[in-house]
């Protein structure tokens, strides 16, 4: 151990402390959804008492108390700001968080381990919005999300088209020539197959792109790099070795934004989900209603239902507003032809500004 190594460990610990502090602030904001008043003197007392109890070793109880008085003060300030809580699946730095930032530039972005946690959070009311990926232009439909969509009683209030750009990220002191192994989500690895092959890099699957970035920063395995988004480089202090390493430049993930209440503004796009009887022409009758009213369909997806072979639900998106008379007429014709029908929502689409690249592929 020398001074350089000790300092590196200190930096590492600071990162951990700040990451946990951020998590604590997120939880504080979440707690504010369960109470009416920001200030809760009884609870604050309780927190300070347990901090004093937790303090040990070189951390004196008085120091713990002082520190946490500041922390509580900051939590209170944040709670007063009334930020909307936007849930996404994955860790900080995930594509879902980037989509959330596009949907609501000034929000608190809350990571959720599973897609179902995003749905549960919205249903329970502690998340104001949830962002879930419904499809990717290369990878196709995200089936788990679509399954959850069928059963959940909320509204689609927006959509975000997120251009996905993969970056090769490594620790700041890694020589790119030493990189041998690249870890990332299997889908990201698959989308960069050409790049990995060109550089003779070994692809190793990891459960999540952002999770791989965090692991790299925390465990610092030698000769490793990860494929993740640009946001991860900032969050996990990684160096971007190469931007836009995907084999196909047009890679877009479509996210839908879910909330308990329908969108208040007039939208220009609608989503429905339905199932039909098992008879010849049942689905055709539904489609015909849209054709007759000259409504352009932007997505038609069939999702197998509940493990019963041959049973499907259909997701359908179309251009138009639920305020339009033609839309109402078309939907009135659709409903009798379905065995299940739900109007998911009417909303506006958020598309990203032209993605910045290094122009290498012009």
């Amino acid at each position, binding site marked *: 151990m020398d001074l350089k190594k000790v300092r590196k460990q200190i930096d590492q610990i600071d990162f951990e402390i700040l990451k946990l502090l951020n998590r604590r602030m997120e939880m504080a904001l979440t707690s504010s959804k369960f109470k009416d008043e920001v200030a809760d003197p009884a609870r604050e007392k309780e927190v300070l008492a347990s901090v004093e109890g937790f303090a040990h070793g070189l951390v004196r109880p008085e120091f713990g108390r002082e520190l946490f008085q500041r922390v509580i003060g900051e939590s209170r300030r944040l709670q007063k700001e009334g930020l909307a809580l936007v849930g996404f699946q994955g860790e900080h730095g995930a594509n879902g968080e980037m989509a959330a930032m596009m949907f609501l530039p000034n929000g608190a972005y809350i990571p959720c381990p599973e897609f179902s946690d995003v749905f549960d959070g919205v249903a329970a009311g502690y998340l104001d919005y949830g962002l879930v990926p419904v499809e990717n232009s290369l990878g196709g439909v995200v089936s788990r999300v679509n399954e959850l969509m069928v059963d959940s009683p909320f509204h689609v209030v927006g959509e975000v088209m997120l251009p996905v750009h993969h970056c090769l990220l490594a620790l700041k002191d890694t020589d*790119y*020539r030493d990189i041998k192994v690249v870890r990332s989500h299997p889908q990201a690895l698959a989308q960069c197959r050409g790049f990995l092959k*060109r*550089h*003779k890099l070994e692809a190793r699957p990891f459960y999540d792109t952002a999770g791989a970035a965090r692991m790299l920063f925390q465990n610092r395995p030698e000769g490793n790099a990860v494929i993740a988004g640009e946001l991860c480089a900032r969050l996990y202090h990684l160096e971007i*070795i*190469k931007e836009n390493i995907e084999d196909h430049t047009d890679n877009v993930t479509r996210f839908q934004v879910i909330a308990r209440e329908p969108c208040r503004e007039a939208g220009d796009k609608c989503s429905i989900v339905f199932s039909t009887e098992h008879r010849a022409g049942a689905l055709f009758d539904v489609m015909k209603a849209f054709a007759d009213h000259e409504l352009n369909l932007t997505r038609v997806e069939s999702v197998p239902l509940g493990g019963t072979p041959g049973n499907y639900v259909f997701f359908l998106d179309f251009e138009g507003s639920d305020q339009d008379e033609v839309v109402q007429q078309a939907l009135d014709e659709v409903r009798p032809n379905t065995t299940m029908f739900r109007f998911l929502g009417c909303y506006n689409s958020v598309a990203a500004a032209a993605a910045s*690249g*290094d*122009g*290498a592929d*012009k």
Partner: protein
Amino acid sequence: MKNLKLAGRGDHERTVIEVGDLRIGADLVVIAGPCSVESEEQTMIIARAVAKAGAKMLRGGAFKPRTSPYSFQGLGLKGLKILAKARAETGLPVITEVLDTRDVGWVTEYADVLQIGARNMQNFALLKEIGKVEKPVMLKRGMFSTYAEWLSCAEYIMDAGNPNVILCERGIRTFETYTRNTLDLSVIPSMKTLSHLPVFVDPTHGAGRVELIPPMALAAIAAGADGLIVEVHHDPSTAQSDKDQAMLPEQFERMMTMIERLAETLKEPVFNGRLDFVPWNLRKESTE
């Protein structure tokens, strides 16, 4: 000359290499830029200046082969990123040198044309690695190399699978010390006879003195060179490398005006009958 079935003249069509809109080997192409990429600011200033003056490609070293290990070795990957940024802004394609077989793949990700420097002309491992790449390569002539040795190195690259080789004369070592090297201009028409590959000239290294660059550049074009590669620096006194031979942007601009005039003149045969030399690439119709 033997064993030059790919690089030798043979029955091959003249090689024309497309880089974006440029047709190297068909159009006169002047490449300019700093010796080394020193910073984003320096590279941007120079890139803008050379683009304005009419350069068609940006040069800049990210990996520098230096005589002394204590001299500036280049910014490496960071330098490549800066070059990519300069390309995005100016639209100029980028040429940069690769020194190490381990870097070939990475440099290829950023550069439009790779360069093998004079010191690495006979680095056969590097030549074979570069031969696997899908980007054009500029092969500089080693400072002690014969024409046959040079073309054999081009053969190495082509044999490994990369047909897009550009030859570049950069001066050879002679007993003269006033100039850094002696620029061998007879190599240009000779290579037009011996090979089908485009021939460039680097008057900066060839002369090593800034006042010699314009006359040598003009002479090279008059002799039929397909293009030039020139070092330009907006503040040569602070340059990290080659400070005595870099042109100022305004000097480069004046030289470009002269080059344009010369190229215009050379399009018409000036010597009636007996000596009707017209650089082949400036001829109205190819008579070959």
